[in-house]
């Protein structure tokens, strides 16, 4: 199938619906296609996309400025057959009103509310127009991502707690509520969970996030590309490589800067190392959440060994700040590269032994099997990503369906299971470690010699780029737009957690309250990555 061979059919459907597609460009956000439509047609775009079978990817706003008629831009990304399509519209800043995409795509719910809170875009017919990212740090009617809002803002001397958020309520005999957080009992990120339960059974879970909102999109503005890469590497500390890569990819595409092959291979090595480090930690933690402490000790031992390998490779245990615009920061010590082959063999042998022990324990399987099921239909409806989707029968992986260099030079196996329970998510992650190890061996064997960094080409005012990288949680999208001097005019990053957090609400229904931690760990959404 050639790329975008479906687009003419998609455009024909738009025409059937009398949607006027104003402009199209295959270059502006290449390899994605960009089309523009009128704001009146915005809602019907979603209807066409859903009927066509597109996957909802991301929605983000932008301040388009304009002296006489200031405007806001809103863009939505869809994916079909591995191709990404971005639809853009502009609304006057005085009356920023659009139809909501949420009735067609459940995944659009929270991103639209984020856009509403930060840009003041009103999404009509949104089924749930409550605030989302805004708690008490700025007022209703203040929109931090508009250009006339200073990054310092005018915050109250003391930010009030977010206590009047209208949570869904449940009534009935025997129904009780359990509020949890934002400060949790373990060493984890803050967020609030509101359970409604009968006895031990969870009737409903409502998530309330936004506690670690740090204004990342706003403070990105005006930064140099190098400073943006550092910031992107801290959107979610556990995904520092993939986020920095996505941001750099967007910068490199915007400025049409070719990245040296050696840097691309080393980035991919780092991304696979990041995937394995997180999978190791989480597999142990999931077992620990059902009382199998042996696995926790063993897997955290392997993770520690692995992080020390990271340290040898690039001088940082989590690989932070190694990915920089145009390449990577430092060539690794040759001895670290030489030692890696043996490191991979050792991990593989250790894992084989541990998996045999895990599989030998029926009590472990009994606790994980059937727990926290996510059906394929729900996973699809919510636009779920990464191993959460792949454990529920959805095979999407950018590295396979929309491969970017260096993954375009090889075939990436995508392990998929159907059961959709905690056990399936563990098994998919086990398989993903295996695939990553095989990929790393290829990258090591074929690692090109040469330069590791190419300076970014000069920017032209308003140039844009889109980065798409398969992080360990799933697809990451990053969008940048540059000023003429090469600094950042707009940055947006969509962590896969945006799409996986809503899945957790569905996963825990009808499970028992004590199984919430293991269900939560099996999804492991990033709070920081979604709160921005």
């Amino acid at each position, binding site marked *: 199938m050639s790329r975008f061979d479906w687009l003419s059919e998609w455009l024909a459907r738009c025409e059937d619906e009398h949607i006027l597609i104003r402009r199209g460009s295959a270059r502006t956000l290449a390899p994605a296609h960009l089309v523009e439509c009128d704001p009146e047609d915005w809602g019907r775009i979603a209807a066409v996309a859903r009927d066509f079978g597109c996957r909802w990817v991301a929605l983000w706003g932008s301040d388009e400025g304009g002296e006489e008629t200031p405007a806001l831009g809103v863009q939505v990304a869809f994916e079909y057959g591995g191709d990404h399509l971005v639809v853009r519209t502009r609304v006057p800043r005085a009356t920023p009103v659009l139809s909501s995409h949420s009735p067609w795509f459940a995944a659009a719910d929270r991103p639209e509310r984020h856009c509403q809170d930060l840009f003041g875009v009103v999404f009509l017919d949104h089924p749930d127009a409550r605030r989302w990212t805004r708690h008490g740090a700025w007022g209703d009617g203040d929109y931090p991502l508009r250009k006339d809002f200073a990054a310092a803002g005018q915050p109250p001397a003391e930010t009030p707690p977010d206590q009047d958020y209208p949570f869904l309520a449940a009534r009935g005999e025997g129904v009780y509520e359990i509020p949890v957080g934002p400060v949790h009992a373990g060493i984890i990120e803050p967020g609030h969970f509101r359970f409604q339960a009968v006895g031990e059974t969870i009737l409903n879970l409502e998530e309330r996030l936004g506690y670690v909102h740090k204004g990342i999109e706003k403070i990105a503005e005006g930064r140099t590309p190098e400073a943006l890469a550092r910031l992107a590497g801290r959107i979610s*500390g556990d995904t520092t490589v993939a986020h920095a890569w996505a941001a750099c990819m967007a910068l490199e595409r915007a400025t049409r800067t070719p990245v040296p092959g050696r840097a691309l291979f080393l980035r991919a090595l780092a991304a696979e190392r990041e995937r394995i480090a997180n999978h190791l930690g989480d597999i142990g933690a999931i077992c620990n959440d059902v009382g199998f402490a042996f696995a926790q000790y063993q897997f955290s031992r392997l993770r520690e060994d692995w992080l020390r390998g990271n340290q040898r490779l690039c001088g940082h245990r989590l690989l932070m700040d190694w990915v920089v615009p145009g390449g990577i920061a430092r060539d690794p010590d040759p001895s670290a590269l030489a030692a890696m082959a043996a490191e991979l063999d050792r991990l593989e042998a250790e894992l084989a032994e541990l998996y045999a022990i895990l599989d030998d324990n029926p009590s472990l399987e009994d606790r994980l099997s059937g727990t926290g099921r996510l059906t394929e239909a729900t996973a699809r409806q919510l636009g779920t990503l990464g191993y959460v989707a792949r454990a529920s029968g959805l095979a999407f992986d950018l590295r396979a369906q929309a491969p970017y260099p260096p993954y375009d030079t090889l075939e990436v196996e995508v392990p998929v299971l159907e059961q959709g329970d905690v056990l399936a998510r563990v098994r998919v992650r086990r398989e993903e470690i295996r695939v990553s190890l095989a990929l790393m061996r290829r990258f090591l064997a074929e690692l090109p010699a040469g330069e590791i960094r190419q300076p970014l080409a000069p920017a032209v005012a308003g140039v844009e780029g889109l980065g798409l990288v398969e992080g360990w949680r799933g697809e990451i999208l990053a969008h940048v737009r540059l000023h003429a001097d090469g600094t950042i005019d707009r940055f947006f990053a969509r962590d896969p957690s945006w799409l996986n957090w809503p899945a957790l609400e569905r996963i825990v229904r009808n499970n028992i309250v004590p199984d919430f931690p293991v269900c939560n760990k099996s999804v492991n959404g990033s709070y920081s990555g979604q709160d921005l």
Partner: protein
Amino acid sequence: MLRLLNRIRRTGIITEPLATGADAETLETLGIEVRRQIDRRLGGSLAIREVDAGSCNGCELEIHALNNAYYDIERFGIHFVASPRHADALLVTGPLSRHMEAALLRTYAATPDPKLVIACGDCACDGGEFGVSYASRGAVENLIPVDIRIPGCPPSPLNLLKGLLAGLKGSG
């Protein structure tokens, strides 16, 4: 089951007495020194309540690592507790997000006196990559008094231990 026991036996005790890297200090000598300080100043144990007040979660990963078998921080008398009411110290990460302000204040109020506040990581010490903005108050000390600062992005487990030791000595 035999396989499991065998694996445990063959793993043995990996907890490190090793010299790490170019450092002259060993984890163990560091730990013994920390232990001594805790015995002297805190009656034998240091109960820590970790609070993420806006972190990117990088610091959390490394704090977690303190509990793995290599570092096994409990042997030095340090343990992480679930409630601030059980804590001697708050270990706070992140630039302080304004949305976490009230929660951190309440956690601080719930921690019995006398208490220590440890700012963990560059962001908690000085705002780090995020600084002060409409969404962030930057350093933790912009809200509550801080006794010990441990810089790093994120601080490695060994640096966490070193920072703790320096802080315990300094604030004595």
